[in-house]
């Protein structure tokens, strides 16, 4: 069914069509509309789910984990400060192997207060054991949310996943979105049926203690293996989804006009659409420019970057976040992925769009022109559109 939906509304509808059974959530700008829309859908009798108004994001995630342990399909949503408050429970979700699916609206971190697009909040959750996706359109929010249940609930994966969409550019911008048929989604996802659940008839202990000489290290190793399984599953599920529903998103790394490209831009989130327009424009003028959209950040598409690097001369990495004391996270990780390959491309890092600053056509053209500059600059010199003296 075609509707005009914002990214927030697409997320709410996706949780409905995926039949999330428990939704503990706490509202925060710019995610609030997700919670409101879910409440509307329940009030209208369209969505049969257990919605729990929580007292904080930390509690929301604790409730989501518990619901998932019972064997319920679980959804929640948050943003920025709320995501940071959840941090402890994010580790708990992956550690207890609960496939909670969460939408995060990428919003800047205070102080100073700023509710606009910035990916620092989710980048700061990199090491929590969550699968991480970044979306480009409201349609992709819808489709990826559905895909994530299929990926996470696989018995070889059983890990939580976070889908990030940029504040306002996606969360509050409406566009036509196709919501797949309920029957088709039901068949695609099946029922959530984890191998172990909280069940009085068949009791197990959850959240136990493990000593250094026992299996703590082994439990962590199993999470590492599950992430490797997720890597395969992400590609498989995207392909299968494409066959059934007619839309897919490039699996781990979404390549756009990269085949014969000399220069490839890498970015995640809503700025991707602007980049595609610029790539098209430059291509018309004969420049061999391409774009690789980082759709999945965890597990990291290292192999995909190595294949890409074998074909291109320069990679310009755009980070809408910054790890103080070093550089943008995407930049660091892409360089690490390319370590040791033959004839590595030049990799340049740019920090852009911090705190919702607009990423314009001109910003991107400047980056592409600068990439020809052979002088390698340090990370603090490559903040794009910074007000300099």
């Amino acid at each position: 069914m075609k509707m005009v939906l914002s990214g927030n509304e697409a997320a709410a509808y996706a949780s409905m069509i995926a039949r999330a059974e428990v939704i503990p959530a706490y509202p925060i700008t710019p995610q609030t509309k997700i919670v409101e829309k879910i409440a509307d859908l329940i009030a209208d009798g369209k969505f049969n789910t257990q919605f729990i108004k929580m007292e904080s994001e930390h509690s929301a995630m604790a409730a989501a984990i518990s619901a998932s342990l019972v064997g319920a399909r679980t959804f929640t949503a948050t943003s920025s400060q709320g995501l940071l408050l959840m941090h402890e429970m994010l580790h708990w979700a992956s550690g207890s192997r609960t496939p909670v699916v969460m939408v995060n609206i990428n919003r800047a971190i205070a102080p100073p207060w700023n509710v606009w697009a910035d990916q620092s909040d989710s980048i700061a959750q990199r090491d929590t054991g969550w699968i991480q996706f970044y979306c480009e359109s409201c349609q992709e929010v819808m489709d990826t949310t559905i895909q994530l249940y299929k990926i996470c609930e696989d018995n070889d994966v059983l890990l939580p996943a976070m889908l990030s969409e940029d504040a306002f550019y996606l969360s509050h911008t409406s566009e036509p979105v196709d919501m797949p048929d309920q029957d088709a989604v039901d068949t695609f996802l099946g029922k959530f049926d984890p191998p172990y659940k909280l069940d009085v008839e068949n009791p197990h202990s959850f959240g136990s203690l493990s000593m250094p000489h026992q299996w703590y290290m082994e439990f962590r190793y199993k999470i590492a293996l599950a992430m490797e399984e997720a890597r395969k599953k992400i590609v498989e599920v995207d392909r299968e989804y494409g066959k059934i529903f007619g839309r897919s998103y490039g699996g781990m790394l979404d390549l756009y006009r990269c085949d014969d490209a000399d220069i490839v831009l890498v970015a995640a989130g809503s700025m991707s659409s602007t980049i595609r327009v610029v790539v098209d424009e430059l291509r018309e003028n004969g420049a061999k420019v391409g774009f690789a959209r980082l759709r999945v950040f965890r597990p990291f598409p290292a192999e995909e970057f190595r294949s890409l690097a074998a074909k291109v001369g320069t990679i310009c990495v755009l980070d809408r976040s910054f790890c103080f004391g070093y550089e943008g996270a995407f930049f660091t990780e892409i360089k690490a992925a390319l370590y040791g390959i033959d004839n590595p491309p030049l990799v340049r890092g740019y920090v852009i769009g911090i705190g919702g600053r607009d990423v314009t056509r001109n910003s991107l053209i400047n980056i592409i022109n600068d990439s020809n500059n052979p002088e390698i600059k340090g990370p603090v010199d490559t903040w794009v559109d910074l007000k300099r003296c």
Partner: protein
Amino acid sequence: MSEKTWKEVPMGGLILEAGNAAEYLTGDWRTERPIFHEDKCKQCLFCWICCPDTSMIIKDKKVIGIDYDYCKGCGICMEVCPFDAIEMVQEGGDE
């Protein structure tokens, strides 16, 4: 027990069987050891009521000794005994 590898342990730190606390011998937490002196004991069973680890061994309604597999050496039994029938000694020292 520790011979299992990552392949055998269930995911997520789960313990699949219920009621397995008995498998965990907490006696090795002990730094002090209670010594039971049967000659002074009047069998009031205060120690049995108060021991948090059910480590007073009872036979025919009488204290006959202490279960060192589980006794954590907290000293509560010594504290509650009205007849000084339990004495605490340093673990590893003379008994």
